[in-house]
């Protein structure tokens, strides 16, 4: 067999495998969205790839019933995720800027600590975290899900990688000569330069916070304060919409719509950012 023919054959097989794996990724999500528009009898009769007309009906069921209010949980998650994202990005850039720009003695120690915590995150000590929040009287509040965002090692690591590539020291010197304060230099000179990187960080912080199940699950017991993943878990376990499976699927669809929409619009930033964050050693 000639080299060219063989290459083409291999290419064909590779494409088939790729398409198969791509279908594994897409089809379940597609079915989820389709089922959100179908009625319970339709869903019970089997899988379909064409949408139906029961979206409004399912929406009505979702709004009216259940011990857990999905829309309130959606709001809770949004509040937490937005606050978390803003704090994460700002403080990660602040920390990374310090490591990158200043030559203080403990710089290496701080950076090693960041590296260590990237590999072994504080999440492994979740019980200790729970007790600490309990001691602060923060159980059943949103603080434990927002305030720790001042110290997110993975974001600091990413910000450091990013600043390394875009920071212009001459501008910082110029700022100093012009009498700008150090914090002012960071806000007015550095941050505008770093906006694309901050944007990528923001997406990751948002998605991480939005999808987090374990920490809110331990911290929050009041169902009024339940986050979206907790609401989904309650719906699944409690069979809240047992008779209306369409509404159940719609609930699931609502929980992932924001992320899917953001991903479709910004996938280049996200995939590129993921690659940029971790490669260099």
């Amino acid at each position, binding site marked *: 067999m000639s080299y060219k023919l063989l290459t083409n054959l291999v290419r064909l097989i590779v494409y088939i495998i790729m398409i198969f794996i791509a279908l594994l990724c897409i089809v379940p999500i597609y*079915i989820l969205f389709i089922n959100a528009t179908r009625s319970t009898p339709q869903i019970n009769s089997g899988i379909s790839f064409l949408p139906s007309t029961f979206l409004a009906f399912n929406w009505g069921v979702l709004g009216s019933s259940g011990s857990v209010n999905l829309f309130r949980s959606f709001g809770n998650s949004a509040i937490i995720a937005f606050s978390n994202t803003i704090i994460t990005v700002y403080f990660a850039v602040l920390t990374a800027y310090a490591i990158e720009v200043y030559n203080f003695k403990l710089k290496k120690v701080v950076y090693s600590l960041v590296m260590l915590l990237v590999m072994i995150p504080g999440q492994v*000590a979740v019980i200790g975290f729970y007790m600490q929040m309990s001691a602060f009287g923060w159980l059943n509040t949103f603080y434990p899900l927002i305030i720790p965002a001042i*110290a997110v090692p993975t974001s600091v690591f990413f910000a450091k990688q990013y600043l390394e590539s875009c920071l212009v020291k*001459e501008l910082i010197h110029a700022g100093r000569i012009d009498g700008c304060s150090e914090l002012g230099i960071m806000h007015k000179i550095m941050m505008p330069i770093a906006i694309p990187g901050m944007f990528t960080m923001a997406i990751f912080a948002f998605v991480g916070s939005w999808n987090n199940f374990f920490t809110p699950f331990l911290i929050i017991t009041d169902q009024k304060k339940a986050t979206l993943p907790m609401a989904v878990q309650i719906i699944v376990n409690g069979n809240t919409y047992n008779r209306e499976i369409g509404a159940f699927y719609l609930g699931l669809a609502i929980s992932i719509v924001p992320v899917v929409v953001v991903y479709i619009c910004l996938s280049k930033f996200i995939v590129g950012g993921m*690659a940029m964050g971790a490669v260099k050693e």
Partner: protein
Amino acid sequence: MKTKKIRQGGKIDRWGYIFVAPFIIGILVFTLYPVGDMFFKSFTNATNRAFNQELEVIGFANYQTVLGNQSFITSIGTTWKIWIISFIPQLGIALMISAWFTSVRLRLKCVGLFRTVFYMPNLLMSATVAALYTTLFSNLGPINRMLINLGLITEPIFFRDTPSFMVGLVAYLQWWLWFGVTIVLLMAGMTSISPSLYESATVDGANGGQMFFKITLPLLRPVMLYVLVTSLVGGMQMMDIPYMINGENRPGGRMGEFATMNVVMTNTYFNGNSTRNLGLASAAGMVIFAVTLVAALILLAIMNIGKDDDSKLEKKRLKRLNKESKLGKAVLS
């Protein structure tokens, strides 16, 4: 950085401490102190009833209770089992796909699109993923309906009552959620390898397999190390999918067949009891912490032992390759 290096400890550089202060405080308050606190409380009879209670140090009693708990001991093995079943295909398939994606010979089209699709599952809420698969595979769910409609089976299969199937499903979902991330990381590592190495290897008559094992794999070591360690640490913390996949308020499966360490810990020490025995929970947390840390350290040690002799060989090989490629080019021109 081309700018002149300023003497350490200069006045301006003190700002560094101010800028990193929030981060350090955050790490101390929300990570390091809790670890220490958990360690201390694991030797006491602490509960969540009163925080000013007189703590009594009770030695290793909590650890004896935790390690005497059969389901907790089993969960350590279960966690490893699920991690290994999902991680080997994750790394293998990701390596294969990223090698194809970066292959000069195949020159695939739509690589960006495929990569985007493969990465997507990782961003989805694992609670939703678990709920979705729970309903897909329920007794009267769509999968059973489809199989019956197709005439493949006459009676619905009780997927959720089949432990081996459910373990496989949990491992599959872990793979599904994470293989895209591994592909993106490995591809970034592969594209950063200089193409001249492959060119010279081609001149030397190396085939695709040889290039993959002799050039790509050794040079991917840093990325592989990162993937391995983060995946291992994450795998030991596995919680969301095994906790929720079964539905019906039975986290970890009917017989606990896919109950990971965190699931058992949460179930035993955090579900329902109004008085939580935080001493016991801390001891369980410490065991999980220790298992994770020891595994990560062993992994790092293994990867580092191999590194020294390999990197020497690598340098030699690169030198030779370079020389030969120059020679080759000289001959060609």
